[in-house]
């Protein structure tokens, strides 16, 4: 049994799965993305029970398990809650490294908003203020915000 195994050439097959999807982003998601595209506005929503302001806007509060119907326009500015400077490169990244991911607590929101920081990486610190820079060409997607920059 074991003899033939020593002489086997281990063959591999290359494959690639590329499946097109067309995700409906939901009515709340549609309004959120349309506001980014058309008005350069970041919209959140406030839970009627706990009062928490979520961003991106949500249709429900998982903790209170209720519907959310109140929209809140947030300032496109906030504070860095957490960040990391990425040093590796990969085709899934929208920008060449080094760049940063940050969780940003936008003014008026109660949760962190995940996005990119591309400039002044050596100056980044937890607690610093940043503001959203919108892309020139906006199509209704999260990257309609190009990135955040130090204020």
């Amino acid at each position, binding site marked *: 049994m074991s003899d033939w*195994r020593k002489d086997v050439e281990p063959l591999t097959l290359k494959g690639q799965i590329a499946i097109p999807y067309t995700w409906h982003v939901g009515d709340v998601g549609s309004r959120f993305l349309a506001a980014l595209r058309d008005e350069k506005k970041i919209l959140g929503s406030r839970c009627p029970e706990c009062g928490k302001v979520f961003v991106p806007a949500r249709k429900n509060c998982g903790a209170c398990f209720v519907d959310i119907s109140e929209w809140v326009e947030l300032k496109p500015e906030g504070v860095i809650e957490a960040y990391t400077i*990425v*040093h590796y490169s*990969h085709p*899934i990244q*929208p920008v060449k490294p080094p760049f940063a*991911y940050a969780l940003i607590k936008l003014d008026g929101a109660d*949760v962190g908003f*995940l996005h990119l920081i591309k400039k002044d990486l050596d100056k980044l610190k937890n607690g610093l203020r940043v503001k959203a820079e919108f892309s020139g060409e906006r199509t209704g997607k*999260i990257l309609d915000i190009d990135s955040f920059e130090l204020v």
Partner: protein
Amino acid sequence: MDKAAIVGVAQTRYERRKKDQIFADMVFDVTRAALDDAGLTINDIDSVVTCSNDFYDGRTISGMAVGDAAGGMDKNISTVSGDGTFGAFYGLMRVLSGYKATIVVAHYKGSEGDVKITTNGMFDPIFHRFLGIEAISAAALQANAYMNLYGLTEEQFAEVSVKNHGNALNNPYAQLAMKITVADVMNSKKIADPLKLFDCCPISDGAAAIIIAGEEIAARSKKKPVWIKGVAHCCESYLLGDRDLAKPVALSEAARKAYAMAGIKNPLREIDVAEILEAFSYMEPLWLEGLGFCKPGEGATLIGKGVTGMGGRLPVNPSGGALSANPILVAGLARLIEATLQVRGEAGARQVDKVNTALAQGFNGPCGQSHCVWIIGGKK
């Protein structure tokens, strides 16, 4: 809870690339080895749980491809698309609902896919996936939030890497066993601040299997049964921004429930060894806090004092943990298997003295969105 026990375990050696084995080969080997370990045959098994993920394996309903290899032919078989600790939880539920013995298998080949693409796939396709975030950069955000809250240092995290890679030298199944220093970790390649290469788990291939049985089968298994004393899992919010990444609340809740079930009041005094899923160095102190072995913010101090070393009060990851091999999904099952070997007294060079009660923990999702905690012991 009715009594249930772990009666058989097996794992492959973990490697960067297992080019001589396909998924089914690995699963067949560990299934047969777990049966041999238990002194049972496939006819003693009446229920099968496989752990696999379609994105990782590159096939739809990926569990189907290993059903036969797991001994599932003509049996009740289903798949958990998550960490092996969760698969084992489901296996236990099967036994508690009347099946005599469940085999739980997990397999993973990180070498065959692209882990950055597959873990990017964990994130919301509308709001997060386009940002390119994946498991490593998300973990780095968590490490940053944790350091910032408590004023921790990268050197404190590096100590975990030194300890676990060193422990791995005693584990014949480990992939990355090495004697390194804090300076080696600090000087290793920058990945995503504050994480450097040696703060991160390797990409791994491997499989593992465990047999969970009721009292009837446990009474006639070859090895001393290792009894399940308490187990619980808990989940928190999906979006990273909705969570306080420095506070593992789902882990705290899972631990609280598992301890209550096992009658544990003071985990640091009553638990003799812990195997926890630290895919990144900072996770070990953070999870120790969630598990209630110390107060929030004191996990790194506990490690710094040597409490979690092989000679300490609570050795953590004598196997070398996930830093020394991280076949995703398999890694949590490996923690439970290592804990089982410790209770049996069969952990070889990595054996901790006098283990009556052991803890194993695994998690799913970025930054430990959901956790599963097991308490096992030698006494029924």
